[in-house]
């Protein structure tokens, strides 16, 4: 496709450059994995690695920590599902219902909160949800509530916060995916007698699959590691793994245990993604076999659910 006449030297240098750039981000993560096998040597030390063991992992999955892991997973799943449920109609609206001239301004509107300081946005919610805040006063004024609003420092508040904070990350990839589908195939589907709903489920949705996968992963992964939202809106009770990890590093000064928790968090995220990919693949199996179209003797290759490849495609 592209002529590679630029010479071998430049190519080699680009490889070397890629090598150094990749050593940058991976080396610290390798250190965390290494520390997680160590222990905390006395009150003032943070980590030691002369005796290697899995003890920190055993410590990290004790019942108290396990409850936090469970809670994090719940917040992550509920938050991602809500983001999709709220964000998908918006992305659809922006891609198909809005006049093309107005799209730029809508994208900008979605982007502005995204680029405002994360912490400050979350504090904004704290001000809104506070028992003595204006929302509480308004709701009491119109008679919805009897007493002050008791939403702050609960799991519901954390979920509102994460849905709010990660919604743009869902809307934008979905919008791009829906927009890529374009009007031509949708109109063809309608010309062939399919209704709005059938067109959506059999044309638009399957074609925007990479964007949907990208959006879900872009929301779920950072959400699982988030600790700011939980600290600001969930109080200091330590309901998310991120808060536990931060506590081990900043307060308890036990880097070994903190590292083990961070590694477990990464594993939890990977397993959760793997399990949900398998579930979605199984659920979609009957639909795929029904929709399969065989043209001539050569059987059409079934669509594989290679999630990483799909995100790569969506982000490039």
């Amino acid at each position, binding site marked *: 496709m592209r002529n590679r006449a630029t010479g071998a030297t430049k190519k080699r240098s680009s490889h070397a450059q890629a090598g150094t750039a990749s050593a940058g981000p991976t080396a610290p993560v390798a250190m965390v994995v290494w520390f997680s096998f160590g222990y905390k040597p006395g009150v003032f030390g943070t980590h030691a690695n002369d005796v290697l063991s899995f003890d920190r992992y055993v410590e990290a999955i004790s019942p108290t920590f396990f409850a936090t892991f469970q809670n994090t997973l719940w917040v992550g799943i509920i938050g991602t599902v809500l983001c999709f449920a*709220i964000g998908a109609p*918006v992305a659809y609206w922006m891609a198909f219902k809005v006049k093309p001239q107005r799209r730029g301004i809508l994208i900008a509107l979605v982007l502005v909160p995204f680029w405002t300081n994360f912490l400050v946005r979350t504090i*904004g919610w704290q001000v809104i949800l506070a028992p003595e805040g204006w929302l509480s006063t308004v709701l009491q004024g119109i008679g919805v509530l009897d007493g002050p609003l008791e939403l702050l420092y609960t799991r519901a508040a954390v979920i509102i916060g994460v849905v709010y904070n990660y919604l743009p990350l869902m809307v934008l990839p979905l919008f791009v995916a829906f927009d890529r589908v374009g*009007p031509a195939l949708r109109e063809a589907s309608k010309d062939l007698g399919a209704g709005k709903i059938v067109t959506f489920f059999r044309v638009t949705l399957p074609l925007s699959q990479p964007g949907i996968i990208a959006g879900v992963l872009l929301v779920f992964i*950072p959400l699982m590691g988030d600790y700011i939202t939980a600290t600001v809106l969930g109080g200091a009770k330590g309901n998310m793994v991120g808060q536990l990890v931060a506590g081990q590093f900043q307060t308890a000064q036990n880097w070994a245990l903190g590292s083990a928790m961070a590694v477990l968090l990464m594993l939890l995220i990977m397993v959760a993604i793997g399990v949900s990919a398998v579930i979605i693949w199984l659920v979609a199996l009957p639909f795929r076999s029904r929709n399969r179209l065989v043209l001539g003797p050569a059987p059409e290759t079934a669509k594989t659910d290679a999630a990483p490849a799909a995100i790569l495609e*969506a982000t490039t």
Partner: protein
Amino acid sequence: MTTQTETETLLQAEARAARPGAAPRRRPRRSWSDVAFGVWGLLVMLFLFLPIIVIVVYSFNTGRLLAVWDGFGFDAFASILVKPAIQNAVRVSLITALIAAIIATVLGTLAGIAMARHPGKWVWWFLGLLLLVSVTPEIVDAVALLPFMVFLGQDLGLSMFNDGIVRLSVGSSLFATAVVSYIVRARLVGQDAQLEEASADLYATPFTTFRRITLALAMPAVLAGFLLAFTLSLDNTIVAAFVQVSGTTPWPVYVLSALRTGLRPEIAAVSTIMLLLTLVALALVALVLKRAGDSATQIARTMTGG
């Protein structure tokens, strides 16, 4: 890329076709589902702006505590001027964001150009790696960076890594580098390498070709990447909270610690000023991309690292 342009051509053609014979195509009565989508979209937009509006409004709160409204006034803005801790935090944030943006732009541009101009299997591995960097939970990045920097600074004796500014700049440049590389790559992949080949045919040295052709082609993406990297680094809270050294506290970490001692309206006032700065930066990015001929959708894709 091709489907993109096709879609847009179709849309433009449709829009043009709709204009002269407006009566049959554009029905005056809209279906209920269109109205429902519109209402939902507007509600979500309102939801997205609610806390920001609240913060801007509460920055004019004259009370002692942020959440309790007392009265309207500019007291919070005035008190910024007499609080050196706040000024210092903002200064540290601006300086580190600038350095981080420069690091990210240089590394990201080189990586982006390498990926776009020397395609091969390594590009997919490299993209996967960048993807890994951008989707790693920030807390993991942060807990990984702290021991790493302590190791570099104290065990290896590279004393520059004991400096707060250096630590913060390097820490926030990681994610930003990934974003800049996506943007630069996306721009160059869409353009053919013919100009570079022509330049080489005309006896330009590789360096001249790089400077006057490749870099010139990538320039809008480089500028957009720079501004985005700056905004991202300014916003960097979690990594900064971990790698900061006492004495050089950046603004978000200052806010985080204020969370424990009680939030005051000054926080909202500084945030309002920073919001204005961010808006100006975003408008500049959009302007640069628009002048380079991108459509709204492409701008969105560029800004989200697509």
